[in-house]
């Protein structure tokens, strides 16, 4: 059999996956970059659909020069035949074979047909999705995730409504608010539950990444420029409306996280963009048997998971934003290229990326502590509030499962109430159900990373033989 280059499947074409692809390509491996979207970029660098003819897409983006570098680099490697890019491939399972792996993907957007491809190594750059904790009214049309509002703006060049309240906690809220305002929405308020003093307490770690602080200050300045009122140590108590969102009630929070009596006020809006941070996509890693630390994929200094031949980078290994994802992706790509050829990589080759990684991990650990969802949020979730959106399970039903039926863990709550059994497989409701039930969040262990037609499971596609 002729000698062939090892194949590295990179799953996800956001910052981490693109950095990994550029680092590995041309170093003796063939890279197959697999992504669910029509265009590379992931969520952070999501581009307007081609048919929209955007001549100045950078108006919607930050760190545009980095994107140009990634995109130009990808194009050059595609032209050189070092990379195969498979768009609209929704990976639903990665199987361990002996040796190597088979990657199964549904072809989008229909997702009725599945294809399989063989790889010698797999690099998971699967990114993250938003955590939203429940509150009364959060299922009304017009209540969207902050990232969702941003995705439809960046990709479809549309606004969710005319008057928007941006609320929750985390570093995403500022850019979403300024982005929506720049695109013409009236942002009636930015409601952040974090206490600014929490940042002061972590000043030592936060000054370690001055560029990030300048970026944050820039967003804050633009907020002022757009005339967006910033309400810190505030929360949305309730979203109001019958068939769709009409207003929200916001309230100040005291130092214990309780609403300050008398501080409530109604804000009229047709959109509420809400976020309580991000969660990593770990289903593929979990299915492969990679160890997790809490909700993130465990990796070593080379971004290797504890399954031989599987690397992970970016939000999947811990939420830390695009710059950290780039550093991790670069390291993972260099390591994978060397290891798949049977050589030992020289960590000196990625020393600069490793320093960036150390600095940004410390920065985001500190930030994560400061941006905590409002304490006592569970107390404000009324019994009638739907917590599992798919199965329409109320907080009252979850509390009854724990209280009168004696459920002591999330799995039992799920079996008794169906919370987490719907289409999203608990991705959206798990933090909320766990909080309301008073149970520890448990890794979900999803066998399949996305819904798969039964016909596909009955007749799995055979991978083509290695070339």
């Amino acid at each position, binding site marked *: 059999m002729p000698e062939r280059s090892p194949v590295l499947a990179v799953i996800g074409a956001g910052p981490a996956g693109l950095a990994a692809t550029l680092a590995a390509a041309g170093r003796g491996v063939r890279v197959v970059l697999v992504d*669910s979207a*029509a265009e590379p970029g992931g*969520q952070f660098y999501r581009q*307007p*659909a*081609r*048919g*929209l*003819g*955007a*001549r*100045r*897409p950078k*108006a*919607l983006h930050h760190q545009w020069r980095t994107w140009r570098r990634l995109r130009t680099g990808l194009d050059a490697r595609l032209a050189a035949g070092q990379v195969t890019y498979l768009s609209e491939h929704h990976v639903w399972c990665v199987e361990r074979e002996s040796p190597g792996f088979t990657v199964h993907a549904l072809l*989008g*957007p229909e997702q009725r047909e599945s294809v399989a491809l063989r790889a010698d190594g797999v690099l998971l750059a699967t990114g993250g*999705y*938003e955590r939203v904790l429940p509150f009364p009214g959060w*299922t*009304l*049309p*017009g*209540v*969207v*995730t902050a*990232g*969702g*509002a*941003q*995705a*439809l*703006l960046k*990709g*479809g*060049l*549309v*606004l*969710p*409504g005319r008057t928007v309240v941006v609320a929750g906690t985390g570093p995403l809220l500022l850019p979403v608010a300024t982005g929506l305002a*720049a*695109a*013409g929405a009236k942002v009636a308020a930015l409601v952040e539950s974090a206490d600014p003093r929490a940042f002061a307490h972590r000043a030592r770690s936060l000054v370690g990444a001055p560029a990030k602080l300048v970026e944050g200050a820039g967003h804050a300045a633009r907020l002022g420029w757009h005339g967006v009122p910033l309400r810190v140590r505030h929360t949305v108590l309730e979203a109001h409306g019958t*068939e*769709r*969102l009409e207003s929200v009630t916001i309230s100040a929070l005291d130092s214990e996280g309780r609403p300050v009596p008398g501080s409530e006020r109604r804000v009229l809006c*047709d959109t509420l963009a809400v976020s309580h941070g991000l969660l990593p996509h770990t289903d593929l890693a979990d299915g492969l048997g990679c160890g997790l630390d809490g909700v993130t994929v465990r990796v070593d200094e080379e971004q290797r998971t504890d399954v031989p031949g599987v690397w992970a980078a970016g939000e999947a290994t811990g939420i830390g934003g695009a710059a950290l994802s780039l550093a991790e992706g670069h390291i993972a790509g260099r390591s994978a290229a060397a290891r798949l050829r049977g050589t030992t990589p020289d960590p000196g080759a990625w020393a600069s990326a490793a320093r960036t990684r150390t600095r940004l991990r410390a920065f985001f650990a500190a930030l994560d502590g400061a941006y905590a969802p409002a304490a006592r949020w569970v107390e404000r979730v009324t019994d009638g509030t739907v917590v599992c*959106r*798919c*199965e*329409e399970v109320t907080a009252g039903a979850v509390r009854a499962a724990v209280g009168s039926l004696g459920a002591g863990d999330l799995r039992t709550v799920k079996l008794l109430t169906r919370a987490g059994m*719907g*289409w*999203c497989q608990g*991705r*959206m409701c798990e933090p909320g159900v766990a909080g309301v039930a008073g149970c520890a969040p448990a890794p979900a262990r999803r066998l399949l990373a996305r819904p798969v037609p039964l016909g596909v499971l009955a007749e799995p596609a055979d991978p083509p033989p290695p070339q």
Partner: protein
Amino acid sequence: MNPLRLVRARPGAPFTVTFDGREIEALPGQTLAAVLWSAGVTAWRSTRGDGRPRGVFCGIGVCFDCLVTVDGRPNQRACLVPAAPGADVRTQEGTGHDA
């Protein structure tokens, strides 16, 4: 200001899709969710249990709240599926298989 002006977009020729029989305008490349939002529509499903209205929530294909019936096929995620000229988009009642 609007998003198209912000990025100095020169979209391809607009086309129409129908939503519950009403014609609405779409731009090439936009997802059904984007097209419906542009037309001021925020709900296109009623839930299986309580019949409550739902539309986009996560916007990136994770939550399945934005399910809609397209050309007779239910359970399409409006945030992922691009609008096609002449598509017959209908509010999905429950599972979409009851009618």
